[in-house]
């Protein structure tokens, strides 16, 4: 009896000691993560401009479903998601395999060059892209000089091309970031597996699909989830390159939140509702991605 008692005491003591170590972190997380999240949730049930907020229950949520601007923003965001994320992941995979080749020279230079966009400032690169793709910008001048187009493309002021410009911009910015994950994962694959495959007569394409891709699966899942989250929160590029225009052809959900909060008469309640719609979408998409690509235990 005495023994069990002291055992128990020891266990509680060790549990409490454990907690005391993480207590500060827990408190900080509560104050700076969960409390604002809860406040935002409460806010999403309120309507009004500025500080004249009143509780209106689910009004904001029902408004969401009939709000054309919101629906267009969601549609735009999903176009970016469906086009850009697979494009970027395939590109990153391809480049990382090339850069992992042991025979390649100046590896460091290429890796740095491709990773460099990720460390540039979001605003700075957006502004540069805006000028590169403007009516008489470098891209149009080059295309005209090479006789690929007969008239300058309206990269920023045409609804279709504006979307393409945004997709090019985010692909440029984030491919290198994903590439780094693939590179580090590739270096963990034992070289002897490839040698064995070679001896068995597998072509390099076969090796890629038979060995590289399956072994990179967890990393591919990870990058696709982080990219999905990133794309659903896309803001800086659109804000700085097209301001959501022309019309609302490139407007994303995050930019709509910004507009509701700061461009129009400040409607923080509805903006919080729209923010929560992103939370719900990210949660759903992540679950789907785990189900489709994840291992049973992962």
């Amino acid at each position: 009896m005495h023994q069990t008692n002291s055992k128990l005491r020891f266990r509680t003591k060790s549990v409490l000691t454990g907690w005391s170590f993480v207590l500060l972190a827990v408190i900080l997380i509560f104050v700076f993560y969960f409390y604002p999240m809860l406040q935002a949730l409460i806010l999403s049930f309120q309507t009004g401009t500025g500080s004249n907020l009143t509780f209106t229950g689910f009004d904001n949520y029902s408004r969401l479903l009939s709000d054309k601007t919101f629906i267009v923003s969601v549609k735009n965001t999903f176009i970016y998601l469906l086009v850009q994320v697979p494009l970027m992941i395939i590109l990153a995979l391809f480049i990382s395999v090339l850069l992992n080749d042991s025979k390649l020279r100046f590896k460091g230079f290429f890796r740095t060059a491709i990773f460099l966009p990720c460390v540039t400032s979001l605003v700075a690169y957006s502004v540069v892209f805006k000028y590169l793709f403007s009516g008489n910008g470098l891209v149009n001048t080059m295309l005209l000089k090479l006789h690929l187009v007969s008239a300058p493309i309206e990269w920023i002021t045409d609804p279709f091309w504006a979307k393409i410009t945004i997709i090019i911009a985010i692909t440029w910015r984030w491919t290198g970031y994903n590439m780094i994950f693939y590179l580090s994962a590739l270096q963990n694959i034992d070289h002897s597996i490839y040698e064995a495959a070679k001896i068995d007569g597998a072509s390099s394409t076969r090796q890629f699909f038979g060995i590289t891709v399956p072994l990179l699966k967890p990393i591919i899942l990870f990058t696709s989830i982080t990219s999905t989250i990133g794309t659903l929160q896309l803001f800086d590029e659109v804000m700085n390159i097209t301001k959501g225009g022309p019309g609302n052809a490139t407007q994303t959900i995050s930019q709509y939140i910004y507009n509701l909060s700061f461009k129009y008469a400040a409607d923080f309640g509805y903006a919080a509702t729209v923010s929560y719609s992103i939370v719900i979408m990210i949660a759903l998409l992540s679950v789907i991605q785990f189900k489709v690509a994840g291992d049973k235990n992962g």
Partner: protein
Amino acid sequence: MKKGFALVLICLLLLTACSSNSGSKNSGNTAADTGKTENTTATEPAQAKEITIWAWDPAFNIAALEVAKAEYAKTNPDVKINIVEYAQADIIQKLNTGLNSGTTKGLPNIVLIEDYRSQSFLQSYKDSFYDLSSSIKGTDFADYKSGPTSLDGKQYGIPFDSGVTGLYLRTDYLEQAGYKLADLQDIDWKQYIEIGKAVKEKTGKALITLDPNDLGLIRVMIQSAGEWYLKEDGKTPNIAGNAPLKEAFEIYKELTESNVAKVHADWSQFVAALNSGDVASVPTGNWITPSITAEASQSGKWGIAPLPKLTVNKSVHASNLGGSSWYVMNVDGKETAADFMAKTFGSNVEMYQKLLTDIGVIGTFKAAAGGEAYSQANEFFSGQKIVSDFAAWTEQIPSVNYGINTYAIEDILIVEMQNYLNGKDIDSVLSDAQAQAESQIK
């Protein structure tokens, strides 16, 4: 030991709970603080020693503030005035987050707000702005400024620059097309497009440059007819059945379809189009003058005609685009801030002459228009007395209620404008926009 630890844990939890609550209680605290300081100011009438002002545009608003600061220092040398420059979008964000958080710390004493947005701030954050009714008289300023700067019969803003519009023209291009400045004195927008076609044919230059994301031109047109996106109450959307708006849309479409318009995507491209000589005219606010005169090589090639008018309603040759006013925040130092504003922008006729000659600011203070600087000839515009022209047009600007939703409605209209340009019928364009505006604005 165990109990002691549990106690510590509970205390810590309570502490966090308190600290997280303090955010929402802050407003109460600061209100109490302000009350305290008010008391002290009541017993010691000493003024605040320091006030802070937020504004944008160093070449225009900030420069005007510097003039006012120097002017005020003559009589009140002890007051330190900090002028902080932020981009307009940053000011809006900072104000919104500051006012909404309930704490007044970090807010300025005086802030510049665009007229289209001022009501959204005044109505959304009642009591956050200081009533200036006893410091200045709203009737001393241009009539159309009273709508944006007052609420419930109280004067909250000191009306500042006029957004009075004019039609800036390249007279050399016009002459090549067989027109003189005098031919454009009393035209409507359709005649304007006809002239543009002739200019395009003779010189190859575009008549106008447009930004598909900015319907400023539409705003200018409808205000010239005394209409707005909203009805007189500032709340009900006024889109379907708004005859001036319909005509403005039709003119906009004609401008794009008759091949006389160039497209730009932002401000720098806009100014570049004017300075490079790519466009023959700019119908816009008088604040564009410094940007146009910045290209010294074009001196003598520009002239300013009255704004073309619509054919419907009682449209006049005068309108407004942009323009902003000063607001005193209801925080410590408000009396000093109000005093600063009243003695400078609120009454100083001499200062307005200096603002005009040094910076090119056309104020809306009525008494200032009689000053000498207002009737000076401008060499860049071939000796035209542009300021007295603008001052005369300022008086004709129809007063409208901008309400609080100008930009929300405009974003709806921008989309519908694209649909209209792509062939959608005008009446369904306007009725669809009306329906959407009604569902969004509550």
